[in-house]
């Protein structure tokens, strides 16, 4: 039976902090089944031998967890809901008949997926976000002792602020605590003072008080600090793994591991829409018609605004431009299409000078020459359009009145309208979009809408089969 020495395929990052030996092997007694509290930091791959089928099966199980997290996020689940979701995902997918094997499975699956997801920028980004999210929720469910241990292992040695310092900024801390829905800190509350750079997500959400470059974080916010450290470590490790993959592993393993690794990422992350497939020949003259019949609302809205204003701001150009590329609009046609609209507003000359570059850029013909992928629903939903912008997800970014009007125009009936609004209120934007799809096309969409280009392809399929059956 084929076996692999796992550590031979992993790259480890030289450690700069002196911490305890970070990888704790399964030394704990296997008696108690509740003892799954060990939270590995995946600093280095253990010298374990892995059977070929475990290699693949473990990886698939972990992918189910990560994919589940990704879906939860794009449905806009709140923190508490995510916590529950992660717990359930782990319970269903990551258990093992032998208690002692649970930790091994955790570690092996992580390192296999590192190989799978190290190979492109997009893959790395996705894996990094999902693994960090997973780590975060596992950290939160650990007991205080175990949390402290992780804190120490990551080399985080911050001291709590003194009483005097606490009193000096107390009213600000009270204000922030109220703001984020926490009880006001009592005088023995523990706060850490850390450089703000180490807790970017707390800064971004204005969830901390900042003063002279330092963030005052409450004990319940330590998870952010830990997650940021975890993320930055994993990010470095992934780049190293990538280098190792391209320089040696891919070649050495081209008959054994490489095919498995390559199959793993495509089959579970959903298809890559940067290259149009089935309906590859879309010409400009068809655009008006297919925009009406097959574009999801987010793209249809951009398309209509472009036709109306002969202009779109950057976010809109990116969202629509890459979508159209995925739909099958060739570079030359794309240039002609955008020029036809923009030149009415800014003149053809200015279009060629200021805008054409970015369109060629999208197609990988300028700059870094990366063939950019169309935006997924998650990306569209998480964008933040501001004044003058038309991009983003209508289900999230439109006011209710505007959304109703837009859906009415698409032909959604009244009853479905209320169902859609209900989903929107619960922040299930992709489900709302799925309902819209089903209502307009009169057919089901079991997989749900995860990508605007998927909406388009599914729509074309439905329309085509309708055509075939009528002719």
């Amino acid at each position, binding site marked *: 039976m084929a076996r692999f020495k796992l550590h031979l395929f992993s790259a480890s990052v030289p450690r700069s902090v002196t911490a305890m030996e970070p990888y704790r092997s399964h030394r704990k007694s296997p008696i108690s089944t509740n003892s799954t509290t060990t939270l590995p930091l995946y600093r280095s791959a253990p010298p374990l031998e892995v059977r070929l089928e475990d290699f693949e099966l473990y990886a698939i199980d972990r992918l189910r967890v990560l994919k589940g997290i990704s879906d939860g996020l794009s449905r806009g689940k709140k923190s508490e809901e995510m916590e529950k979701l992660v717990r359930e995902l782990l319970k269903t997918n990551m258990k093992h008949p032998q208690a002692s094997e649970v930790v091994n499975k955790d570690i092996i699956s992580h390192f296999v997926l590192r190989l799978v997801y190290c190979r492109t920028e997009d893959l790395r980004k996705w894996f990094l976000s999902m693994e960090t999210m997973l780590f975060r929720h596992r950290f939160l469910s650990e007991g205080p002792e175990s949390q402290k241990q992780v804190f120490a292992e990551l080399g985080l040695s911050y001291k709590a602020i003194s009483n005097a310092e606490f009193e000096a900024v107390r009213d*600000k801390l009270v*204000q*922030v605590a*109220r*703001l*984020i*829905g926490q009880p006001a800190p009592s005088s023995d509350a523990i706060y850490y003072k850390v450089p*703000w*750079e180490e807790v*970017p*997500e707390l*800064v*971004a*959400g*204005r969830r901390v*008080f*900042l*003063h*002279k*470059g*330092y963030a005052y974080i409450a004990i319940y916010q330590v998870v952010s600090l830990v997650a940021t450290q975890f993320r930055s470590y994993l990010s470095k490790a992934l780049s190293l793994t990538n280098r190792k993959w391209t320089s040696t592993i891919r070649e050495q393993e081209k008959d054994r591991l490489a095919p498995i690794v390559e199959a793993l990422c495509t089959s579970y992350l959903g298809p890559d829409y940067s290259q149009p497939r089935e309906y590859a020949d879309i010409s400009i003259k068809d655009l008006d018609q297919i925009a009406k019949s097959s574009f999801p609302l987010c793209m249809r809205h951009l398309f209509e605004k472009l036709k109306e204003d002969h202009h779109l701001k*950057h976010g809109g150009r990116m969202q629509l431009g890459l979508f159209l590329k995925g739909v099958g609009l060739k570079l030359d046609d794309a240039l002609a299409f955008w020029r036809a609209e923009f030149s009415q507003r800014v003149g053809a000359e200015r279009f060629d*000078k200021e805008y054409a570059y970015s369109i060629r850029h999208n197609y990988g013909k300028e700059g870094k020459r990366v063939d950019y992928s169309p935006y997924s629903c998650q990306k569209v939903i998480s964008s*933040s*359009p*501001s*004044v*003058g*912008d*038309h991009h*983003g997800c*209508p289900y999230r*970014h*439109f*006011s209710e*009145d*505007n959304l109703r009007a837009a859906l009415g125009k698409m032909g959604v009936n009244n009853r479905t309208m209320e169902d859609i609004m209900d989903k929107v209120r619960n922040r299930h934007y992709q489900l709302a979009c799925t309902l819209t799809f089903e209502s307009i096309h009169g057919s089901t969409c079991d997989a749900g809408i995860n990508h605007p280009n998927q909406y388009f392809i599914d729509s074309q399929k439905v329309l085509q089969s309708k055509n075939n059956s009528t002719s």
Partner: protein
Amino acid sequence: MVTAAVENGGSDMVIDGNEQKPKNTVSDGFDANYLKIYYGKLFPYADFFKWMSYGNDGKHPGSDQSYFGRREFSFTLDNDIYLRFQSFNNLSEMEISIKEKCPFKIDIGPVYSVDPAKRHAYADDNVFTPVERELVFDIDMTDYDDVRYCCSGADVCLDCWPLMTAAIKVIHTTLRDDFGFNHILWVFSGRRGVHCWVCDGKARRLSNEQRAAIAEYFHLYQGNENSRKKISLTGPVLHPFLVRSYTEVLKDSFESQLLCSQKIFSTEERYEKILDMIPDESITSDLRGRWQDNRRSSKNDVNSLRWEQLKSLLQSGKHKAQGMRRHVEEIVFSFTYPRLDSEVTKHMNHLLKAPFCVHPKTGRICVPIDPEHCDEFDPTTVPTVAQLLEELNAADMEVDSENDWDRTSLGESIRFFRSAFLQPLLKSCKEEIESSYNAKVQQSKNSLSW
């Protein structure tokens, strides 16, 4: 040429974006020949080079001699030819190139891992990446078009400029007091906005994620074209940073400047926009009733009067409990809070126009703005390149002066740049180089002794 001044009186005809203002352009606009002389005699190359070297041009063994040469500059030439990835090894290379190419616009990019001119040699390996870049902010008046009634698009005047002043104050204080940055340069963009360069060592080394965190910290503007509300302040209280911005800057800017200069309540269309932000029907119909009836209420300015009425109604005891006073804050924030082009801030490799460029449309110099005295800054009196050349011609050549710019009104700007920004910056750069060098030496000593 039309020279009649446009009456900005409270006529109902002033509709957002429809107003055509005659431009009072004299022949002092922009001319490519002026630019040649400007680059030949006035552009402060040495100060510019000093800044961009961050102390690495010195003789200290800890300084990085390759630093300046890894910086990307990009030039926009006549006919909109765009040259990216220009780099220079030293002051004279830069000076010669700028004089020779005479760029209409100079943009500053990041410092890369290797000389940008040699980037193709490293293209495959991902070695060529940005490693340092000032934290930058770009604020453009066009983003405020829905809250200014005096001008729109590219035009600015003294009635809407207070929007920029408020933005400078809010951002400057926050960068200094919250984020702990010290070396902050504010620059007039030449026409309708301002740029901000944060140059502290730790600002230059921020990751994209950390830059995005700062941009998000500032980001409030939630509304887009398809939602009615422009700002929504949620939660039981405001973040201390927003409270400070409100009490120290925004409230005053709104009440003592913009309220009257923009005539925010003067017409039905305008006050309806504000009533739209208050979700309580009884309050809005009460106010609407009062405002529709008394068209002329004599001596008091109608804007201040209506604002006071709105405030007292929203803050009255009756509505206190329902959080109605928050809507007062929301209105002030909607009309005054800084609107950032956050993409520029978030990414290291975004280019931004260099200070002391000449704006090709207005001919005005992109001069530094003193954030401590930004109320006094007047964008309509910033020297133009034509004016500088006239001053140069008129100046007494006999007077001994080290630099030509000393004899023009550019001198004041350059002296400010030096004393308020460059000198303190270089001082802390030297300290930083010194201490990181010492740390390195110490480290190698330690490893030897073991």
